[in-house]
């Protein structure tokens, strides 16, 4: 008897759900959403090193200029060209999304923490729109420009035994940024970090960092130090 009741229940639920699924199935996916615009990605030349930020395609989302979000996309950020690629399953194509059409993108890192990139105009050397990763958001943001350059190196032979003399190298740049005030470049070392503060504050900032036993040597420690100093109420001297 109990099995019979269970069967009826399951059948009933199935009938109810199937109706709803069918109702949604009438429309194409994302039919009323903004469409992604771009050009076909042309493979970069192979050298030692890697031009992309992530090893493979990562599921993520993009934000269009009007704030609309397109999600469930396979994304890959090219740190070499500062451009965002997505994989169009239907067309089987790797597409470089028009930078001008989006305001940012995000995806989850291997540790599950979301990585958020924002398109901003950079007014320093090599002016233009750049994708910055937001490391810390507040009155003053700490941003990372994940740049990978093609640099000349000692001649070497690649897998196909072709002689090459270039490689992809990291050239990450970190900036403090405040809207309306601009950018201030910071390198992940103590002196450079102190340099972005007022001379009057530098001693107190140094003390605060030491008290918290932080040694600024890399991105993680730079971020840690900034969070401590920001919590202490110190302001960045943006120039």
């Amino acid at each position, binding site marked *: *008897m109990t099995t019979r*009741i269970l069967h009826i*229940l399951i059948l009933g639920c199935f009938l109810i759900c199937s109706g709803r699924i069918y109702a949604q199935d009438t429309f194409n996916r994302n039919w009323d959403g903004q469409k992604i615009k771009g050009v076909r990605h042309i493979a970069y030349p192979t050298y030692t090193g890697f031009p992309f930020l992530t090893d493979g395609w990562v599921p993520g989302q993009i934000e269009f200029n009007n704030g609309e979000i397109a999600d469930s996309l396979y994304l890959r950020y090219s740190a070499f060209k500062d451009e965002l690629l997505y994989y169009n399953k239907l067309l089987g194509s790797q597409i470089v999304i028009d930078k001008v059409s989006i305001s940012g993108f995000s995806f989850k890192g291997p540790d599950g923490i979301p990585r958020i990139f924002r398109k901003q105009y950079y007014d320093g050397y090599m002016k233009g729109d750049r994708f910055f990763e937001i490391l810390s958001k507040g009155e003053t943001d700490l941003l990372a420009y994940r740049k990978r350059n093609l640099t000349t190196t000692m001649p070497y032979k690649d897998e196909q035994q072709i002689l090459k003399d270039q490689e992809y190298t990291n050239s990450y740049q970190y900036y403090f940024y405040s809207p309306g005030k601009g950018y201030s470049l910071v390198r992940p070392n103590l002196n450079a970090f102190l340099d972005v503060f007022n001379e009057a504050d530098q001693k107190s900032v140094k003390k605060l960092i030491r008290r918290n036993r932080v040694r600024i040597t890399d991105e993680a420690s730079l971020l840690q130090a900034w969070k401590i100093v920001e919590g202490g109420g110190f302001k960045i001297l943006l120039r």
Partner: protein
Amino acid sequence: MKKISLIILFLTSLWLPGNTQQKSFYGLYTDRDIYVSGETLLAKIFLPEGISSSIVCLDLMNMNGTRITGGSLSIHNNEAEGYLLLPDSLSTGTYLVRTYQKHNASRIKTIREIWISSRFDGLEKISQIKRIIAPNSIQDKETTQITITGIQPEYKTNSSIEANISIDESLLKELDGNLLVSVAQTEQTFNPVSFQIENNQSNDGIIEKKGIIISGTITDKKTLQPEPNITVCLTIPDSIPGFQYYTTRKDGRFYFLLDQYYGSVQAVVQCFANNPNQRLNMKLDELYADPGTLPGFKLQPISEDFKTNITRNISAGTFRKVFGQETLVYSSPPKVIRDSYPYYGKATKTVDPQLFIELPNFTEVARELLPGVKFRNYNDEPSLQVLNNATHSYFEDNPLILIDGIPVRDLNIIKGMGSADIDRVDICQNERFYGDMRFPGVVAIYSTKADYSMLAESSQLARLTLETIQLETKLAEPSNTEPNIPDLRQLLYWNPTTRPNQNMALKCRTSTIEGQFKIQVRGKLKDGTILFSEKNFEVK
């Protein structure tokens, strides 16, 4: 067995709420009841709770149910305000203003009767007028909890009116949304009927949650069966053309959303067969609701007062037209963030053929002026190829060809275009993608005429003029700059978005129009009931 019955009952109860149709009520109110052709009708719509659509339609129909004009209004907090420009060509008679939402238009509509007099003929020959016999007319509830004080029984022309509207504190808590406050000329012998058409048998369509939806069906011309996998395109020609596409599914249906357009918009909808021999038939769904079954009419004699007022209104309406006295001030459309370049991408090269020597046809134009574009017309079979900048070779497939932003596949359309016909040509020499569409290069031709006359209407191409979302408006202030020009306003005050307060001051001025006027305050309660309070006065 009992248990099984109980379970079935439980499942049925689960199923039912999704299908039961909630009783809805649309309150439709116009600024006046009597108009002259060429005037503007203002309307306020109170919508029921739980509306998921963002659009409500406002139409004008004649007594036969033929739609004359209309608009789509944006809903804010279950309310909408809009206007109808009454055509000058209307003949004298009773007309119907109706409101509905497209998704349930076949199920529910609210209709209001109005009188429109033609500006070009009077009522001399008319002794009777047709009036509606509405079996279920909507009766609003007059309340004493809204009091209008400070109104005198008589005012002089061009004098100021100051009134106070008081709302009972207990009613304030019950009111939902804004009030409609208006001061307008009234005709006491013409009490219009407002009624609702309900049909519980009909099913709901697609809800316009984000904006206006254009839909239709593609069928095969031979088999008459719905055709899947057909690409249907909607283009809104402009300096930066708007473009949408939809690939039909098994049912052959297609949908387009127009959420960022305001006012009247020209659009082209077209479908493309997957093979050259296939012929398709594109049928667009009705953009407006059908009239449904309208109630009957009865003849009613007209009074001499009515005739006199109409004659005076016709003169006033004509004068206002002559002196260009506008009823409304239109707001600028909300700022829409649109891309600064067309959907087909930034042009690699833009060529203006007018700057060069005149060339007779597109073969010559392409050869002489368009870099990386190969147009051949051997044996009257034209072909077009674009150079791929990335690979430095020509694309094998035909590029996306556009005339004034509208995609075309038949190259015969462009082969005769000489440099005199072309304003500019945008060329994209790369492989572009737009959603799931791939363009092996783009040649976008913008014609000098820009009237899309080269694209003939067919079963696969339809040109439409769409009434998209109405712009927000407010009542124009009377102009005091020229004292010699008479102020002929029949509507003295109109504020459909008055925030309810315990005490509200109302200030306006009478015009040179004499006669009976009415001050009205209307509001909706949380349970959907519409309340009103009104007071009459005379302008002498």
